């Protein structure tokens, strides 16, 4: 379905588009972001600096970007999907060769005063490229191996580059969001069963081979995997942090210890309390009411996004929306599962709340695309 098919005459034009935005979604995003401002104020010990104020500025800027992206017709975004994918690939390669090393990993690219995190950009461009690919491809042929292989390459190339940075969390997120798009496009479920089955088989093989003659990995690699899966094996390293996070979260109780009264975050027992572990502070200070209501807000955002998908008869827009939604969902699901001790510790921020610029901006661009799809959805002739 190319943009030529759009019934452009029925589309809102100019500033009238603003009225057709999905305002409920905008309100939800602002509400979630407000949780973030409150928590950043709290973890700074009751101060707007150094985190809350910059975060507020970024969010406002992010809202602006979202509106701008939303104003641009969705068919324009489809036509630049390939270009965007190419650009993000080039940037990822740039990181590979010229990237700045931070926190033991190459993630940033410094271009003058600008500091880019291309892996964040790759999340959105990969989804766009996939959606464009399936919009272009013949629906009857998409389950053929060649087509599946092309889609897999589109996903796995950036995944491979991000893994090398190394940033396992982001690469898994890209792979999973890409997988969601491929799944939604209608590729035969057998492929997914195959992938899941072979991954499971590989895992089983790796673990059963341990200690035998045909052991697949070195001993130290096994020990690393052990520590990754069960942080309590390393009580003073990663295990210490996850343990402290769980203590903070659990001690919150029903209504929390009160705003700025959380002892775990106040006394620095929590690691990364303004970024990846901010959910624990929220849970500690506002209890189940605070943390649970945030999860409900997230679910509502997911719901509104899915509604957009269902109302869109445009294949590109629908698949793009599925990707953006999956990406958003994976962010908060992996982050909260991690701090609750249900998932290994991987560096995934809590969307719209954790302090940080790149992730916030990319999310807002994603929601902008979603809004664009919403505004520019085909209206059925009445």
């Amino acid at each position: 379905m190319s943009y030529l098919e759009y019934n452009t005459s029925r589309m809102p034009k100019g500033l009238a588009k603003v009225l057709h935005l999905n305002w409920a979604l905008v309100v939800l995003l602002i509400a979630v972001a407000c949780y973030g401002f409150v928590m950043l104020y709290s973890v700074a010990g009751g101060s707007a600096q150094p985190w809350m104020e910059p975060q507020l500025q970024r969010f406002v800027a992010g809202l602006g970007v979202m509106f701008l992206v939303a104003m641009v017709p969705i068919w324009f975004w489809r036509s630049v999907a390939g270009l965007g994918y190419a650009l993000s690939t080039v940037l990822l390669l740039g990181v590979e060769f010229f990237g700045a090393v931070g926190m033991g990993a190459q993630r940033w690219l410094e271009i003058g005063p600008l500091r880019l995190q291309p892996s964040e950009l790759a999340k959105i461009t990969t989804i766009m490229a996939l959606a464009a690919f399936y919009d272009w491809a013949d629906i009857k042929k998409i389950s053929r191996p060649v087509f599946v292989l092309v889609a897999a390459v589109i996903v796995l190339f950036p995944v491979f580059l991000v893994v090398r940075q190394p940033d396992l969390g982001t690469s898994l997120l890209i792979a999973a969001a890409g997988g969601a798009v491929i799944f939604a496009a209608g590729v035969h479920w057998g492929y997914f069963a195959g992938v899941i089955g072979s991954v499971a088989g590989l895992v089983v093989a790796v673990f059963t081979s341990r200690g035998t003659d045909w052991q697949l990995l070195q001993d130290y690699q096994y020990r690393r995997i052990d520590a990754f899966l069960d942080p309590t094996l390393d009580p003073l390293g990663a295990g210490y942090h996850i343990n402290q996070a769980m203590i903070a979260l659990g001690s919150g109780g029903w209504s929390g210890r009160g705003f700025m009264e959380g002892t775990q975050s106040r006394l620095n027992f929590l690691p990364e309390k303004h970024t990846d572990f901010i959910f624990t502070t929220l849970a500690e200070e506002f209890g189940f009411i605070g943390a649970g209501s945030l999860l409900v807000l997230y679910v509502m955002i997911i719901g509104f996004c899915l509604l957009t998908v269902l109302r869109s008869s445009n294949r590109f827009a629908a698949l793009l929306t599925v990707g953006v939604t999956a990406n958003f969902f994976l962010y908060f699901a992996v982050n909260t599962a991690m701090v609750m001790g249900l998932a290994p510790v991987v560096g995934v921020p809590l969307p719209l709340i954790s302090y940080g610029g790149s992730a916030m901006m990319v999310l807002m661009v994603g929601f902008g695309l979603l809004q664009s799809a919403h505004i520019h959805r085909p209206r059925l002739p009445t």
Partner: protein
Amino acid sequence: MKRSDREKELSRRMITRRALGLGALQLAVTGTLLWRLRDMQLEQADAFRLLAEENRINLRLLPPTRGLIHDRNGVLLAGNEQNYRVVMTRDDAGDIDLVLARLSRLIALDDAAIARAREDMLRNRPFVPVTVAERLSWEEISRVATNAPALPGVTPEMGLSRLYPLKADFAHVVGYVGPVSERDLQREETPDPVLMIPRFQIGKSGVEREAESLLRGKAGSQRVEVNSVGRVMRELDRVEGEPGENLHLTIDARLQNYALERLAGQSAAAVVIDIPTGDVLAAASAPSYDANLFVRGISSKDYNGLLENDYRPLVNKCVQGMYPPGSTFKMVTALAALEAAETDGLERVFCPGHMDVSGNRFHCWKRSGHGRVDLETALAESCDVYFYEMSQRCGIDRINAMSERLGLGIRYDLPMTSVASGLNPSREWKKRARDADWRIGDTVNVSIGQGYVLTTPLQLAVMTARLASNRAVLPRLLRDPLERAVPQATSLDLRPEWLAMIRRGMSNVVNDRRGTAYSSRVVDPTMVMAGKTGTSQVFRITQAERDSGIRRQEDLPWNRRNHALFVNYAPLDNPQVAVAVIVEHGGGGSSAAAPIGRDILLAALNEGRPPLAAYPTSQRNRISAEQDLLEERLRDLGSYRVSRA
């Protein structure tokens, strides 16, 4: 590409179906997360709350303030001074070399101190705080505090550390404190938790060690909120401990200072006892050392210097040093003979200069002999033969009993380190220790304080006090500043007429022209003293040496010369103070020890400074010059005086 309506519809339905599937999956995952959240926050909240409290609250012991030690007049002998120090924890510091390098730019830290701190940190477990620098100035400690962000793991601390303002004067009596060692912990049955406080100091010697339980006090406790690196954020509550007890010694700091300076330059000891109370007024052991060196951590160079010194400055010779008493023992032999009724004291014994006992010849110190001597003369002129005779008459058993009655061979329970019991020999002792029978020659040797008998200067002072008072004077080192009167010591029940004879003999030693210490007499009638010289042989002058011309003590190497002893008391008619002096390898008691004994005794009777008028006119010029020299070295205690409790 262009799609047919059917295809569009197919695509739409496929996407709808699969998107709803994904949505359901997402909802299920979120539901699981919510369930987990509910489980942790509602079901296990109490357990986690407890863990959070344990995390943040830390119970700390507050070291009690150590009790002060004063002299009998309230002069501070051991105090506590503010001490600013910097401690560092390896765990929190991360790169300890970097942090130490930064620290060395803020405070004076030499390479040795850095190396020691580094080694301490690497040797201890990573969370143990190690003291990097001590005794910093307020400016230095504030510089460290201001730069705290650049110095992870470094904490400025304020504590009290022990200070001995009179330095070397009380090193042997008061002793010193030091950090708790493994052995200290083992010595206590249930170690006081306060000992676990890092850098806590306990008594290592002297009163500091022996009266540790009084001085230490009880630890307080403090509940504090700590952050993840253990830094204290605020105090929640606090229970104050009890400071240690302040102690008052019987020592007079002014007299102690005088005695030490008077002994300076020799390896010597002097003990002064207040006869009515038994108070030890001075216990000087020379040479001494500055006890503060040990508190601050003595360098191995300084320590080896003390260890290798021939004059053994680390030994408290007053109570640890055991010496043959020589002629100062003769009062014991005399009293044993009198009590055994083997003589009436007036009987004269002929001294030809020697006596043959079972084939061995025992010489009198005066080779030409004393002629016929009675008890008083024998004491005054220190005739050996008289006592050889008396000891054979009364036997070792009576001498042994009298010796004990006069306070020799007893270990006094004073709060000082390694108080020795000396040796009061007996038949049983020789059988047990030497596996040999007692011989008559042994008795003869003991009669003049040679042979097996060994005494400490403290014991000799006690003996003198007992002879002067006929009471079983017991020495004591601690006193209650509020006490009204000390109960009098029990009587020794020695017949007054015997004691009168002994005292007259001792008086003649210094006041009779023929007495061995006539040159050390006191002319002031209110301070007339009595005494007894002693010269105890350490090595015999061998025949070979005699042949090569060595006849005098001065010709021998220092460590082979005789010990010089002198015991005395005064005033004659109303004894108040008893003194015992020993000068190791000093030569003769009358020349080396008696002048010192007189000076110290006069100082004790006159608030620490002997009055010139007490000396014989002919000696005053010389004494005056000596006093002027000594006065320059004496400490002015005016600034140390503290009001009485």
